[in-house]
């Protein structure tokens, strides 16, 4: 009897582990460029035009988006602007920059706000255009939008000295093809 219970428990654990592994695999899986259902676009990091910063490294960008850095060199407070959970741009950032899950990110910000390490929680906007307009209106804002949504009201940062158009630019977003 005890052997049976152990066996069932072991099977359950194995199943759970398998599910976790499968999920990780799904999250970490590289996009198949030949998949006809998605299109790949560069994700531009945008700041206000009055911001003196033109380029950031990936590590600096990560620090900013994690809230570890609170002010720009000109003293202006950094305001993070993000898309809503589930949006392709947010998923790209979670995977390529944060390297966290949604839950981990949420916990990180909750902890930071509670301890006072993070002053303001990120602003969540529903649309790419909304992000752009927010960045336009707030001198200390930083956000991300797909390259096709960029216009001359905001400035695009170089990441690791690469612009979104350049070869080797890391931040790419998968966008479903609308039929």
């Amino acid at each position: 009897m005890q052997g049976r219970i152990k066996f069932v428990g072991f099977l359950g654990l194995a199943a759970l582990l398998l599910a976790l592994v499968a999920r990780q695999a799904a999250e970490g899986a590289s996009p198949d460029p030949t998949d006809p259902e998605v299109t790949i676009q560069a994700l531009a990091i945008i700041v206000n035009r009055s911001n003196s910063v033109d380029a950031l490294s990936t590590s600096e960008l990560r620090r900013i988006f994690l809230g570890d850095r609170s002010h720009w060199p000109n003293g202006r407070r950094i305001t993070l602007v993000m898309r809503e959970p589930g949006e392709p741009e947010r998923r790209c950032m979670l995977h390529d920059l944060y390297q966290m899950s949604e839950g981990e990110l949420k916990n990180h910000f909750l902890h930071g706000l509670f301890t006072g390490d993070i002053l303001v929680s990120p602003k969540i906007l529903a649309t790419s255009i909304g992000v752009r307009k927010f960045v336009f209106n707030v001198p200390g804002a930083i956000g991300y939008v797909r390259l096709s949504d960029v216009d001359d009201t905001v400035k695009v940062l170089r990441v690791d000295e690469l612009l979104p158009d350049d070869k080797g630019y890391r931040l790419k977003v998968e966008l479903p093809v609308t039929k």
Partner: protein
Amino acid sequence: MQTLDRILSAILQQYATLMLVLVFCGVAVVGLLVIRDLESANSSAENMYRVSVQGLLQAGELQYFAQETRRATLYALTTNDSNLQVEYADQTRDADRKVTEGIAEYRQQAVLPEQLELANRLSRDWAEYLGIRDEVLASILEGSTKEAVSLDLSGGVPSFERVKKDLNEVRRLYDEQASQRLANVVATSRRSALRLIGTLGFTFLVSIVAVWAIQRSRMIGAIQLAKLQMEFVASVSHELRTPLAVLNSAADNIADGLVTGKPEIQRYGTVIRTQSRQMSELVDQILLFASVEDRSARYFFESLSVNQILDAAQRSTQELVEGSGFVLEQRVDADLPPVVGDLSALTQCLQNLIGNAVKYGGERKWIGLHASKGTSANGAGFEVRISVVDHGMGIDRSDLPHIFDPFYRSPRVVNMQIHGTGLGLSLAKRIAETMGGALTVVSEISAGSSFTLHLPAAERNEVDLRSAAAQPTSLSQQ
């Protein structure tokens, strides 16, 4: 009153057309001025609408959109939803863009110094407010609500108040401008109305005066004509009474048996004949004048030589001339062309002229009868000129314009009791004109007079009338 009548008569005769033209010009000038005033008023009204009224509307819009920027900014304060905040930010920026454009347009249209100064001040205040507004908006979007409110209270509200004050000043200036333009329109309209009334009044007055003057002139003319006719009747009566008196006297003497002996009878017979002929000639003249006036005279036009006419005239006046002791000197130029006319009428014409020369020839008792050739007045061909010249009393310059008027007799002649009907020259002139010619006069007081009958020379085809049957022509067909 007589002086006024004379002046009126002279003015109407000489200057009627000029006065009419002057009045017309005056009315036209005033009319043009009125039209100009109306156009000016219309233009002022248009400008008033375009600049002032539309300016007021524009100022109202600016005030509305300026208020909109504030409203949208403050609405953003009332929510924590970043999406809504961004939307309100869009609204405030849309509104501020309209205000900025409106201010730029106002500055472009500003002409007066105070308008330019106000435009510059408004631009500065607006730019200052927008700067503060942007900071407030950024604070709101960042989530720093307290900071946003503090900034708005300390900077946003006072700067917006300045903008409001400037916009109110813009409205006040437009309002002032509109009032001034309206006053101009009213003044121009009033001026136009006064000018119109003045012109109408003046025209009405001039019309009344003109009608009165014309009526008076006609009345004077009628009175003068009646007077002349009365004088004519009196003169004819006198002319008839004199020979009648002689005839009566002769008849009485004969009837009373006072005339005996052949010589005396012959003398009486001559007197009776002479007086009868005079009466007959007078009656003929009156009847001829009446027929000319009535346009019922019938003439026989034929080609005539000058000698024919002169001989006929001499024959008809020989007794009168010789009986008066005058000498008639005839001079005819050579190669005179023939004329076309009625011999009897032309003879009558010259008879009247010679008769006048005898009557007014004075003591010299000389009459010249000259025939010559000249160029016609219109320069188209030749004419024959037959002049009757005397060295008598002459005609006063003031009488010359009237001597061809029917029944007219110079006051000087009437005072000298020289008898006549006043019809001779009038008849002679009408006959000359019927023949296609004219009758002219040159005269000087105490030197004498020269009356010239101008007759157009006959054309080649008119000469053939000599061989063809003469066609009677009624005066009414002329």
